[in-house]
């Protein structure tokens, strides 16, 4: 008895931190597009940070809980409800057996992470539970959720935050949430155009000054053909004088490529392991969570920063996440809500 999928939503997949050590075999890393929100959701239900959760895209699923369990929802605001009541985000929520969790439309952002206490219990494939859609492995049968699916969730012997299950009003509503919530900086996520910091690669210097200026001044829009493999940017075409063949080489999450048509592509979680287009640079890893929340049509601008700054920002973000995680863990072990 677990979680039944009544409606699958637009693209709902099981994700974790992805597969590491396998890129030399052509296996993409994959994993949560907004790993920051994903991590906080897991912290909030008392899971290990990398437990498998659902990545929900734009239009969310409708789920029925066949047993009571803890959940938490972080990331974009996709208008979640439980038993037709608005579902509070960024905090632990206990859902009683029979509860129905549904979504209507995206209010802010593109992707939300629904963590279940105990974690989604699908088989590890090459060390990860992430779904790789293109060749179809990992996650739930290597594909997005479908109506009728049963999502297995690992049992938790003593769920944290025991007080939630006895919270006032839970019998009528079928769920209860804490009054406290994790700070998630949703203001920064909402900015449009979003500012995305990047570290320039050597090829950046080969662009003419006008082309570099054009890239930095343009309000790019996320193109309709964008997906988990890469975001195609609409806007000005960037002139690439040195469009001779570039030797194919490794790429990473956030690599900004310049194909022959001049429309940049930003490689995302399910990118191929090797690319053949010139690389302008890489998005600062600390900003990937902001990029992952952009919907097709949303606008962004690039800001160049030095590598040292990018690494400082990443370190600060990871330190803050860990501190928040420790603080959440302490709250979860308390009785009061």
């Amino acid at each position: 008895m677990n979680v039944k999928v009544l409606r699958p939503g637009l693209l709902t997949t099981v994700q974790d931190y992805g597969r590491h050590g396998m890129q030399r075999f052509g296996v993409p890393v994959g994993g949560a597009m907004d790993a920051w929100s994903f991590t906080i959701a897991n912290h909030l239900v008392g899971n290990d940070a990398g437990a498998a959760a659902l990545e929900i895209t734009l239009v969310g699923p409708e789920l029925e809980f066949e047993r009571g369990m803890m959940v938490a929802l972080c990331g974009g605001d996709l208008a979640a409800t439980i038993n037709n009541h608005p579902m509070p985000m960024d905090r632990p929520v206990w859902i009683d057996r029979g509860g129905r969790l549904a979504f209507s439309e995206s209010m802010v952002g593109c992707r939300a992470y629904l963590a279940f206490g105990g974690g989604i219990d699908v088989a590890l494939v090459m060390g990860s539970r992430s779904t790789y859609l293109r060749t179809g492995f990992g996650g739930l049968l290597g594909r997005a959720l479908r109506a009728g699916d049963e999502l297995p969730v690992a049992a938790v012997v003593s769920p944290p935050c025991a007080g939630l299950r006895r919270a006032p009003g839970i019998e009528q509503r079928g769920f209860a949430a804490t009054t406290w919530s994790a700070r998630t900086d949703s203001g920064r996520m909402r900015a449009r155009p979003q500012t995305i910091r990047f570290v320039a690669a050597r090829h950046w210097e080969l662009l003419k000054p006008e082309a570099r200026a054009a890239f930095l001044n343009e309000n790019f829009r996320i193109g309709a053909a964008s997906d988990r493999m890469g975001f195609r940017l609409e806007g000005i075409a960037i002139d690439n004088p040195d469009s001779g063949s570039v030797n194919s080489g490794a790429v990473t999450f956030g690599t900004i490529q310049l194909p022959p048509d001049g429309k940049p592509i930003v490689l995302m979680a399910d990118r191929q392991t090797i690319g053949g287009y010139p690389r302008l640079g890489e998005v600062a890893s600390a900003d990937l969570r902001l990029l992952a929340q952009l919907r097709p049509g949303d606008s962004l601008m690039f800001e160049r920063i030095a590598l040292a700054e990018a690494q400082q920002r990443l370190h600060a973000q990871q330190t803050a996440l860990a501190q928040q995680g420790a603080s959440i863990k302490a709250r979860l072990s308390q009785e009061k809500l």
Partner: protein
Amino acid sequence: MGDRALLLEIGSVADPETIARVRALAEYLDAQRLPGVQDLVPALCTIGVHYDPEQWQDERGKHSPYEMLVAQLQRILPDLSALQAAPGRLAEIPVCYEPEFGEDLETLAQARGLSVEQLVEIHSGAVYSVYMIGFAPGFAYLGPLDERVHAPRRATPRARVPAGSVAVANQYTGIYPSVLPGGWHLIGRTPLCLFDVQRQPPSLLVAGDRVRFIPISAEEFRKRDVD
């Protein structure tokens, strides 16, 4: 390459010497087991090093993790010309070169002014190196491909290429490990499984291996095509 990866450039042209050095260096680096290095991705002239910068923090706060890792690499990197790698394993890949299994076999032969037999002889007559695995899980880029068989990618790629398809494009030959979109010219098919998530390692071929294609009959193919 951003704040969590760097690219080692071994040469600028993918000639046999550079390819051998890439392989030797990748093997050597792998053996060093540098902390926080999650992946080494060899390609034609480069090696991508994916690392966790948390493992390379400077306690004194003077250097970035990138600088710390580069300093360590500079300390341990050997003189490349002295680095020897064992010759890669030789894999023999059975291929059925029939139009039924390679939709472009006849058209490519004709376009290059060859008979099908000649094309097969040329393609199967060489021993190739695996330059890199990329594009898809287990997809090996093999070369050097005889110039007589060179052709640019198809103007219109196919949405679905059968798994096991042996293909050529430009100076490479390769094998599609699973059903994938593809723009290369399909000249045959192998019954072997190039990629299996349950296998360790999952990819049949790795960068640095050598490959020889062995022509087999359609009958032989059907016997061996277990999937």
